């Protein structure tokens, strides 16, 4: 069964350092999402891609966070510099439905657990 891949699974870094997370969606999925999940809370959308274009990044802290999906397949989320409050699980999800289709089922990857010291 196809799955969303993410790496690394765990990352420990010191504040002010740069970190990057990678996501490979299910093959053929045009839409890709990055979420942040703080312990004990639901996932919060950071950025949504349709192919290589950003559809929504209204919740992305653009002063330190950046995301790209250059060829419309895999994607990278970067934080520079990392802050203590960035400690969270970063989840990637993908969906097969094109934009403006009837409904959009999102499938999540295993996530990257980030700890900022």
């Amino acid at each position, binding site marked *: 069964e196809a799955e*969303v891949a993410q790496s690394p699974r765990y990352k420990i870094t010191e504040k002010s350092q740069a970190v990057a997370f990678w996501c490979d969606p299910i093959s053929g999925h045009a*839409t890709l*999402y990055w979420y942040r999940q703080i312990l*004990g*809370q*639901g*996932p*919060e*959308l950071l950025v*949504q891609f349709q192919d290589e274009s950003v*559809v*929504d990044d209204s919740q992305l802290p653009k002063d330190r966070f950046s995301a790209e999906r250059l060829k419309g397949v895999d994607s990278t989320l970067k934080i520079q510099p990392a802050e203590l409050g960035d400690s969270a699980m970063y*989840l990637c999800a993908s*969906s097969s*439905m094109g*934009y*403006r*289709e*009837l*409904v*959009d*089922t*999102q*499938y*999540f*990857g*295993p*996530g990257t*657990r980030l700890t900022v010291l």
Partner: protein
Amino acid sequence: QQPVQSPQAVILREGEDAVINCSSSKALYSVHWYRQKHGEAPVFLMILLKGGEQKGHEKISASFNEKKQQSSLYLTASQLSYSGTYFCGTEKASNTGKLIFGQGTTLQVKP
């Protein structure tokens, strides 16, 4: 805008039933339900589109009351494997794919 889930937590014995509610103050296009076990990715359960339909997935079913902007998840004859945190994700009244998740309901099923 975040939907409100209730209860926050529930403890059951195997074979007992549970209902988890998800309420929104905004008009909704769809409600998505996920289950997440500790340290793992959320796993998709089902989607409800506006129209008051009810769906089933094994012994787990859900309904969506468009007038109340509320969805309910029904777990029947619970099994140990049902333990985890259940999240509803709501989508506004237009298909954007953008989900806003509730704070989650933690379900613990005991033998």
